[in-house]
């Protein structure tokens, strides 16, 4: 059990990992609590889109959502961020979740409006899918897997 716990701690520290999926791409995100896992999933999403080290935190957007269950809420949260990013060309790099309970989320997201040519962009992510979606609680924390359509 010790080993599992250590492993979990290491993963939480890492925040997220990129998953392989033949046609698309996904992430596994970790956290000691559900807020952290939602933050890390969002961070994983934007790390697939751009080199986050180069991104400033000069714009802030607030996100407020509710859904019928936690898994749907996670997808809606990620899709809301994708929507804002697509419309406003913002890459977010930090997330403060002020409330996450009863299948509702209220969060502040910080990032920068990107300009092609000025930032190292990787790819468009166009949707978070329900495919293989799983939020699991294990010894030492939460884990989610999300596949994105690109």
């Amino acid at each position, binding site marked *: 059990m010790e080993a599992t716990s250590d492993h979990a701690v290491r993963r939480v520290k890492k925040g997220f990992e990129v998953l392989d*999926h*033949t046609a*698309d791409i996904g992430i596994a995100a970790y956290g000691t609590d559900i807020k952290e896992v939602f933050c890390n999933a969002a961070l994983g999403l934007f790390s697939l889109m751009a080199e986050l080290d180069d991104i400033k935190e000069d714009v802030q957007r607030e996100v407020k959502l509710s859904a019928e269950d936690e898994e749907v809420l996670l997808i809606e949260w990620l899709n809301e961020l994708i*929507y804002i990013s697509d*419309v406003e*060309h913002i890459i977010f790099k930090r997330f403060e979740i002020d409330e996450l309970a009863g299948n509702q989320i209220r969060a502040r997201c910080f990032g920068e409006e990107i*300009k092609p040519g000025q930032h190292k962009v*990787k790819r468009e992510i166009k*949707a978070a*899918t329900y495919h293989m979606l799983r939020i699991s609680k294990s010894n030492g924390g939460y884990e989610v897997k999300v596949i994105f359509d690109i």
Partner: protein
Amino acid sequence: MPRWEGQLNKIDDYRWEIPQTYKPGMRVPGLVYADEAMLKTIKEEQSLEQVANVAFLPGIVGRSMAMPDIHWGYGFPIGGVAAIRVSDGVVSPGGVGYDINCGVRLLRTNLNEDQVKPKIKELINSLFANVPSGLGSEGKIRVGDKEMNEVLTNGAHWAVKRGFGLPEDLEVTEETGRMKGADPEKVSARAKKRGAPQSGTLGSGNHFLEVQIVREIYDQASAKAMGIDQIGQVLLLIHTGSRGLGHQVCDDHLRIMEGAVRRYGISLPDRQLACAPIESDEGKDYLAAMACAANYAWANRQCITHWARESFAKVFGKSLEELGMEQVYDVAHNIAKIEEHSIDGNMVTLCIHRKGATRAFPAGHKDVPQRYKGVGQPVLIPGDMGRRSYVAIGTDKAMAETFGSTCHGAGRLQSRGAAKRAMRGADVAAELAAKGITVKTSSIGSLAEEASQAYKDVAQVVEVTHQAGISRKIAMASPLGVIKG
């Protein structure tokens, strides 16, 4: 991922059946077009399970089909075809995919390899500057709310009216580039907002513009009907779809369908197969919104066609007439269409879901343009950027067996991560350069993800559909210059 160990019965060298008894709940058997070697790779992931899952959909007729470019998708496999009765069946946004009317358009030219080769860098640079691509790129067209509704209703017809491209282009576009039944009221404000700045953009991922050289012609007469006259001739292939707008339409309606599945008591083996009866409000609303997204995509390819022609004219100092830059055809390969098909001698109205599959109607079919009535509908099958693409035509056999459908491309073999670990973007560019292929991309990092090695060889895919008789190959072309979004 575990290997798929389900039951697969060999029908012949190119056809394999998943029996209806494989999984309780399957309403029809599955049918997979592949050769033995391909099946080994296909079984390494769970795409055949998805073929079996699609067979659960209410109203499905014939078989749940998979083309040889099958790979693992969400809910539906990519390369999947499902024919569903309109009277008592369902429509599933997952059976169309996120990128509604992702498709391919082919243009021919009077130019040959010797004329284009010395200018390929200049041409690719001009195309890259003229056609916005990549993350965060914005189109050169600004459409307001009212005009957006016109784009969604009239598709490529709107573009031609605005001066993008020629009226003749419409005749050789599936649905003439304007799908009926589009209702912009059924498209959310969010979807429209995502679509507004992206009109006339290529996007990223596997979307591309490719300058190609005709390398082989298998049927001179049919090729000639398409304006493909000789080996060495230069073609232009455009591959893109409905951008953020299509994704938002899919996402919006998947959420609605999630509720519909419960309301109508539909039992499904996978959440991503969410669907609603075609005749229900949810089903009708999706089809009306899907048609809008399809029209947006056709308008998109129409605008890109116009700018590509401008680049060719500028670089070669020739008029469009001198260039002979006519459109060969434009196909949708992610779409659901209401079509009439014969089942046991009776004509039945069906909703044909083609997700990573191409319509392949035979000579004489009423929906084949006049120009191709005698030969059949052109089918455009792009390969990966380092190898080759095919032009094929639809057949009577496709009509009888696959509801007039065939494959759509190479199909991925390797995940993006695996491709990237195997090679760096810069190496891919160098390898292509060594083959004489010029490539330009807005993201060198993602170039590795699209390396040849990440895809099945499209030649094998096309060979299976050709041998099985569901489309007939006409010509093959290989790339000289590529723009990757």
